[in-house]
Structures are given as structure tokens and as C-alpha cells.
């Protein structure tokens, strides 16, 4: 990563240890994200990837090691976590008492929800609620955006639209992004670098070359198979890859 050489990293975690009771979830983990870098963190469920995100968000504290994150960071959780008793635009401005409605409307327009500023969260679809959560995260122009399996609860079509939206928002605002996911294809569609966590440390850390981003390209298939191997899944080839081989 040339960016990490030039500028100090946005996130630096070194020798991080996190225990829950007797269970050691993170075992001396080292992890970095460069400024404006989009990193995906993969791992089997229960491996501690969400724990790492929560450490970076400041929700949890590590027992050992150092964690450095930018002052301005925000999170999109797996559930939208909107306050049901506040209109959508007020939710976007949560924790920004000085901000005005126009700011919220600008952020909502960016996620395609300009018409929903006055809606109650309960009336939104799953995708709309999650886009509101994205607007809420981005309206404070964070240097670090943490995404905790944000699309896991959405249907496949909505998820594809959300990928495009997140990628576009990232290109517009250029925060450093960490997306925690268990979906290899999602990681490859979004991130510039893919990491795999296992046994409490980062086992694999690979850049995603632009050529490998395209589904069905040789680079994509090779990287996808390597990631699935790391995750302990015997990798089936995708249908279109099989077609090409025949």
C-alpha cells in the first residue's frame, strides 16, 4: 500500500488482546488501515471480527495492545438502529446538536432518500433504513467509517444496489473504510484490500487488484478461491467460470 507509506495510517492496532471471561477472542492482533483505504475483514462467524470493529469504534476496550483510530469515526451496524421516535432527518443528525435540517437533507439526497426526510423510521423498508444509517454515518464526514455486516439482513437485489452506493459514497468522501462481512463476494466487490481473521489474528492480507474486481475474471476466481480456502470452505467455482473452462 503506497498510501500507508506516504501518510500515517488511519487505523493502527498492535498486539491487541481481547478476552471475554476465559475466552481469548483477539490474540495479539496487528492491523492497519491507510487513509482513504477500503478494507474488508472476513472471517467465520464467531471469530472475533465484529469484536475488532467494536474495539475500533470505542464500544469495547482491549485488555492489551494499542488501538489508534481517528477522532472522527462512525459506524453502520448490522441493524439500522434508528431512533423510532425521531423523524428520518433527525436521526441523520443524531449527536450533532448544532446541525440544521439542510445538512440532513443533503446527506439523505446522497443516499437517494430526499423524499423521506419527514418519514418515521418504522415506515422505511430494510434497505431504506440502512441507507438512512449510512447517511447518518457519513453526514459527520468521518475519517474512518466502520461497517459491521451492514447488508447481511437485506435481500440480494437490494444488497447489490447498496454495494454500488457504498462504493460511490466512498469515492465522493474518501474516508478510510473497514467492512466486516462473512461474504467473500461482497468483500471483493467493495474493498481494495481483503483480510481474513482466524484464531484471533489476521491470517491473510491481500490487495484486490482492479483487474480482480470483475466477477468471472481469472484474478477474481483465484483470489476468491484463496479466500474461501482460508475460511475453511472448499471453494466451488462460480457457474460462469465453469463455462469458460469448458
Amino acid at each position: 500500500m503506497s498510501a500507508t507509506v506516504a501518510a500515517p495510517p488511519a487505523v493502527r492496532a498492535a498486539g491487541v488482546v481481547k478476552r471475554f471471561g476465559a475466552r481469548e477472542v483477539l490474540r495479539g492482533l496487528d492491523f492497519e488501515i491507510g487513509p482513504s483505504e477500503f478494507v474488508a475483514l472476513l472471517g467465520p462467524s464467531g471469530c472475533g471480527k465484529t469484536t475488532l470493529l467494536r474495539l475500533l469504534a470505542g464500544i469495547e476496550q482491549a485488555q492489551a495492545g494499542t488501538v489508534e483510530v481517528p477522532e472522527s469515526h462512525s459506524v453502520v451496524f448490522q441493524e439500522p438502529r434508528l431512533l423510532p421516535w425521531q423523524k428520518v432527518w433527525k436521526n441523520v443528525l443524531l449527536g450533532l446538536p448544532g446541525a440544521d435540517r439542510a445538512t440532513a437533507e443533503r446527506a439523505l439526497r446522497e443516499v437517494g432518500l430526499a423524499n423521506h426526510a419527514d418519514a418515521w423510521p418504522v415506515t422505511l423498508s430494510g434497505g431504506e433504513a440502512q441507507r438512512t444509517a449510512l447517511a447518518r454515518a457519513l453526514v459527520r464526514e468521518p475519517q474512518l467509517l466502520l461497517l459491521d455486516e451492514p447488508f447481511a439482513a437485506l435481500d440480494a437485489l437490494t444488497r447489490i444496489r447498496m454495494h454500488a452506493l457504498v462504493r460511490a459514497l466512498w469515492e465522493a468522501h474518501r474516508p478510510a473504510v473497514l467492512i466486516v462481512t462473512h461474504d467473500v463476494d461482497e468483500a471483493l466487490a467493495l474493498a481494495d484490500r481483503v483480510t481474513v481473521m482466524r484464531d484471533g489474528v489476521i491470517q491473510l492480507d491481500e490487495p484486490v487488484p482492479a483487474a480482480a474486481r470483475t466477477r468471472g475474471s481469472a484474478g477474481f476466481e483465484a483470489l476468491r478461491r484463496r479466500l474461501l480456502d482460508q475460511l475453511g470452505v472448499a471453494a466451488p467455482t462460480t457457474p460462469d467460470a465453469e463455462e469458460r473452462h469448458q
Partner: protein
Amino acid sequence: MNTIETVENNGRPLARNAGAAVSDARAPSRAASRAAADGARATRGARLRALAGTVARRAIVPLALLALWQLAAALDLVNTTLVPPPSEVASAFWELLTSGRLTEALGISLTRIAIGLVIGIPIGLALGIAAGLFKLGEELIDATMQALRTVPFVALIPLFILWLGIGDVSKVALIAFGVTFPVYMNTFAGIRGVDAKLIEAAEVFGLNRRQLVRQVVVPGALPSILVGLRYALGLSVIALVVSETVNANSGIGALVSDARQFLQTDVVLVGIVVYSVLGLVGDGLVRILERRLLSWRGSFRGA
């Protein structure tokens, strides 16, 4: 921030196009807004008709019962001294109203309830908030409140009469005591039941403790607090009736017990009806409050 039009509305990607404007009252075109206004008028008429229908259907059973009752009295199937027909109860009500006796008695009883509520509700709220927000508050308050809650408050009447006399003070004290517990219980449970994930999110977005309480905890606990309020108003009427029935020198209770001595069953029935209307009015008031404060809840209303 620059606009990125990548994602359309889920499931209705063309909602912003003109063809769909009728369904969208916020669409800027004038034709669309006129259509929307017409639509609103039409739906208001339909809503009124639906309301009239549901009111009529709800009234069928009580009206039928009243008619049966009247018929039974007219056919001499019941002793009208003990079971006066609805028409007699109505005329007794009119007499009490025009003579001013009912208004006076009602004023006295309402004042007792009001003072009892004004004392009891804030105490229940304050204790519930203290126990709900602070671990120390819970440790200090909750066990005592749970123990006191199990005392049937009606059983305290003799004690309150000994301590406070047979006047208004003991009645007000009973109402205040009875009302405190449902408010306390529901406030405490409401605060502790606020979604921990919302609190976590609010903390991530930088809310301090005061903002957290104001923007997340209190609104989150409000539905439960209003349930407590509803119980409290219902209980306040029960406490009033019991304390006025046990010893009544004024108020609706006195009206009823005087009537009992002179075998004026119609007046007794008027008293009962007035008591139940008090309960209904209290319930209605909290319902209005709920509709105003909890408009964000899109709740199931029955099919």
C-alpha cells in the same frame, strides 16, 4: 457533498416520475397536489363513514341490554324498587344534575382524585426514574417498592383513618398510595427495557449521558410509562370508590350511601354510572396522550 443517484427507492423505482405522482402527495406539480387534495377529502369522507359504522356496531350490544332491562321492568318481571328501569335512572340523573347535588358531589370527588394523582404520579415517576437510571437507585428503592406493592392498598384504609382521620386527607392519601406503584413499576421497567443497541449506537455517535437520557431513554420508556399512567388512573377511581364507600361525608360516595339508606336504588345506580364514567374519561385522556406522544409507532389496530 455531491449528489449520487445510484440507488432508487426499493421496490418502487419510478416513484418520482410523473405517472406515479398521484400516489405521492409531496410531488411538486400542481395537478398532483390537487389530485392529492381531492384524494384526502375522499378518504376523510370514507374514514368518517367507517367511524360511524364501527361506533354503531359497538353500540348494538349495550343498547340491546338496556332495552331488555327496560322491557323487563315494564312487564313487571323484576322488582322496580330494587331494579329501577333505565328510564327512571335517567330521570334521577336529570334531577340530581338540575338540583346541583351531582355537580357538587362530583366536584368534591374529582378534587380528591386530582390531588391524589398530583401527589402519587410524580412520586412514582421520580422513584421509577431514579431506580431505572441508577444502579444505586435500584438497590435503594426497588426491594422496598416491590414489598410495598404486594400490600393490597385497600387494606390500609383503617390505618389511614386512624392516622389521618375520616376526612379528605385519608382518602387522598389512599389514592396517592395506590397510584404510586403502577407508575413506579412501569417507569422502572420501561427504562430498563430500552433497546441496548440504540443506546450503544447513540453513544458511538457521541451523545453524552444527559442527551442519552433525553433523546433515547425517556422516549424509549414512554410507551411503558403511559401504560403505568393508565393503570394509575383506573386505580385512582377504585381507591376513590372504596374510600368514599367506607366512610362518606361528601362526594359521590355520600350521595350513594344516603340513597342506599332511603332505598333510592335509582340514585345508587346513577352513582355507579358516574364512577364508571370517571374511569372511562381517565382512560380516554391517556389514549389521547398516547396518540399524540407515540405517533411514531405504526401499531397493529386489528383487522
